[in-house]
């Protein structure tokens, strides 16, 4: 099945990015790859929404960035989650669960 690229995903990009970064710091491309990998190719993040999301998160102080040398000896910007980001991750994840549970309930109504 083609990976989801719906609007719903758009709003949850930030959530996914935070989760990914909570596992390890990495650069933008790496984040996209990792999400795809963890979700077993179900989720493919649109590049166009990835970087804006990263910028918004950085504005809100949930992640920080730094220029480093990457694994193939090139300069890349690495992102790292902050303590505030970890807290936000917990909150966002919680509200996501409630949201999807609610949607489930509606769908299972006969």
């Amino acid at each position, binding site marked *: 099945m083609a990976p989801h690229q719906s609007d719903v995903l758009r709003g949850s990009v930030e959530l996914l990015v935070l989760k990914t970064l909570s596992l390890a710091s990495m*650069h*933008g*491309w*790496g984040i996209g790859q990792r999400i795809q990998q963890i979700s077993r190719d179900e989720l493919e993040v649109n*590049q*166009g929404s990835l*970087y804006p999301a990263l*910028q918004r998160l950085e504005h809100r102080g949930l992640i920080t960035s730094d220029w480093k040398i990457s694994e193939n000896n090139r300069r*890349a910007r690495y992102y790292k989650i902050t303590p505030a980001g970890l807290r936000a991750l917990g909150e966002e994840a919680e509200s996501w669960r409630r949201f999807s549970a609610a949607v489930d309930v509606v769908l299972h109504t006969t």
Partner: protein
Amino acid sequence: MEEEFRFHVEMETEANIRAGMSPEEARRRALIAFGGMEGHKEELRRDRQVPWVEPALQDVRYAARSLRGSPGLTLTVVLTLAVGIGAASAMYGIMSRLLLRPPPHVSSPERVVKLFFQYQPSDGQPRTYAARDYGFYEAVRDRSRTLQAVAAYTDIEVPVSTGAAAVLARATVASAGFWRALGTRPALGRLFTDEEAHPASGAEVAVLGHAFWRRHYGGDPAAVGRTLRIRGHSYEIVGVAPRGFRGIELADVDLWLPISAYAEGERDSLTWHEDRGGNLLSFVGRLRPRTSTPAAEGDLSQVLHASDEGHRPVSSGAAGRPRPRTLVRVGPVVGALGSDMQPIPEARVGRWMVGIAVVLLGVSCATVASLLLLRAMRRRREIGVRLALGMSRRRLAALLFTESLLLTLMGGAAALAVAVWGGAWINRVLLPELAWEPSETLDISVLALTGLCIVGTAILTGLAPVLQARVEPAHVLRDGVQHASQRRSHLYSVLLVAQLALSVVLLVGAGLFLKSLHRIGTLDLGLDTESVLVTTVDFTGAGRAPSEVAAFYERALERVQVLPGVERASLAMTIPLRSARGGGSIQLPESAAGMVEEQGSPSVNYVTPGFFATVGTRIVQGRDFLPHERDDSPVLVINETMARVAWPGGSPIGECVPFRRQATCRTVVGVVENTRKFRLKEEESLLYYRPLPEEDADDDRVLLIRPAPGRGVTAGTIGRALQEIEAALPYVHTETLGAALDPQIRPWRLGTTVFTTFGVLSALLATVGLFSALAYTVTQRTREIGVRLAIGARGRDVMRLVLGDGLRVALIGTLTGTLACLVAGRWIADLLFEVSPADPTVLLVVTASLLLTAIAASLVPARRALRIDAITAMRTE
């Protein structure tokens, strides 16, 4: 950012290559997957900015463009603001210098005080004066408990020879303690010591004023140690005063000399200071810490009475009647106090200047606001479109505000220029005697005030269009011709009325001052102040015997009388309007005793025949002196006051008046009209004339010359003629008779100039405002007017429509202004010269002119309305 994206694409490409694609394919796929790099960049860039910088810059660019599109408006607004803000700053600068700023280089000026003397005469107001004798200074120095330093000083004008040139210098002669009282340090060299400043010591040292030093010695430090020749004596220059220092007075001082220089070259040079009763010196003191004013005044009054006991001579004619007690008053050194302890007229007029400058600023702001408002109303369509397209109201307000801010900043920059140049001009031309340095024109407080004005103006004028922009977009897009027909914004009408009212106030002020000036000009002073010239030669210290001086003047008179272009000339002992000599030996009849006691003894002048014709004093009864009467004939000419008071009801001609300590009495042969003694406005006084002896031991002389009109006789002509008599003359000084009155007239000149300028400007602005308003109305109502014309309205009706509109505003405005004048008139009353603040002529003239101007301003739009073609009008949108 770019680098980050590039990295991303490269990684994606490599991944694709590993997945088996060719390099080109890999890259292409990667790029597609990344999707529209430019779009992302733009989005990210937008989000990345500090949120308000970008829109603000955009606004500025837009504002600049739209302002460039209407250059007329921009120019008008900038000029209006420049004048309004600039005038306010300039006036404030002048006033703060005169009234607020303490004298420079005086330490702790709040502890330094000027001494005044006040006594309560039998009738009316307490009289205050500021001069006493050297004995008072000594008494205070020795016995005062509240002053830690005191000094006596006075100003003199002396011809000074710097070696290169002879100039008339303003010098302050000061006693010991002067520098201590003021706490001043020299800029160069030293100041004179207490020993040198003793009146009998005769030390010949001088301290140069800073400006004088710059002007005549080029600021050369080697000037210290050189000599100055004053009245035949050589003075050593021991130091230079700091820049801008002028003691505690307002006028610039060229030199400081020890007080012994006061009588240098005079006969009583070593003993003049012991003479009690000659009130010639002013006093300055420094209060002890924590001394209150009443305590100081009480202490000093006591010192005064103790020192007066047995020293002051009893005044003649007041035998048995005790003089009212004189008290010492203590006044601050700021606030431009004159010798009567009130602010000098320039300062009082100046206070008003600030007031009207503020008013003008108000008018400027109103004008600018109304012009911007007008513009905003014209752009309602555009604004409506923007709002409809989704611009937030706040953004719109910010946009309009940026425009006003830009305009105000430009106006403010121009205002600084106006403030500097205008202030300099006023200082140089209208207040020439009050010292100022060009650097003083702009100081921190003035700059701060200007900045405040700019910000305030920006806010006020920016608000107007913003308020106007609260319009429903839909209305505007439908175009508001229909519903705008009566709705010129109320705000705008109020602004117009305010402008007109303020203009009325300013112009009435100008008219009142102008009328005062005119009254002064037509005053009958008893003297021809415009045409008559007064020449003196300063012989002090030249080593001439008085009889030689008298002889010189006789030769001078003969020489000048035959000069072509000289109608008449004569000699006198005292100079009218500048000096007066007491002639107390005359014994007037009993009926004059009251006036003599009140005013002191009558004054006397010794004159040659033809004096009255020379100076333009009319002979009312009898005759002038005859040439042969100069040999001390017992004759007398008196003035009208003396005739009326001493011989009421009868003619004094032929009366023989006795003189104290003289055997023969003198016969009155003539009565002349009254003349002013010193001031424009003064009480009448007793004055009589005696013939000037040809040979005399008294050498006070002045030469009076009446040139024939248009013959070009000037000071130079006189000077040259005198030099023909004697080649090496000391300083010759010639001026018009009326020059002594100029400083007294100056406050009215100042008031007239400033009020007139501001009034005219304000009226101009009001007219422009009215014109714009009416033009706008006509444009807005083009359709309606076209319809009316088509239906059959006559031209007259249309004109009445437009004119009526303008006239209504003008009437309300002028009425309000007139009311304001009548209310505020009280405060200005004492500044005017024999003119009532509610003078009907002035009010009438001003209101009539403004109404006429308003009508004229309304005519153009009215005529334009007439020419509206009905069909085109109805097609107009």
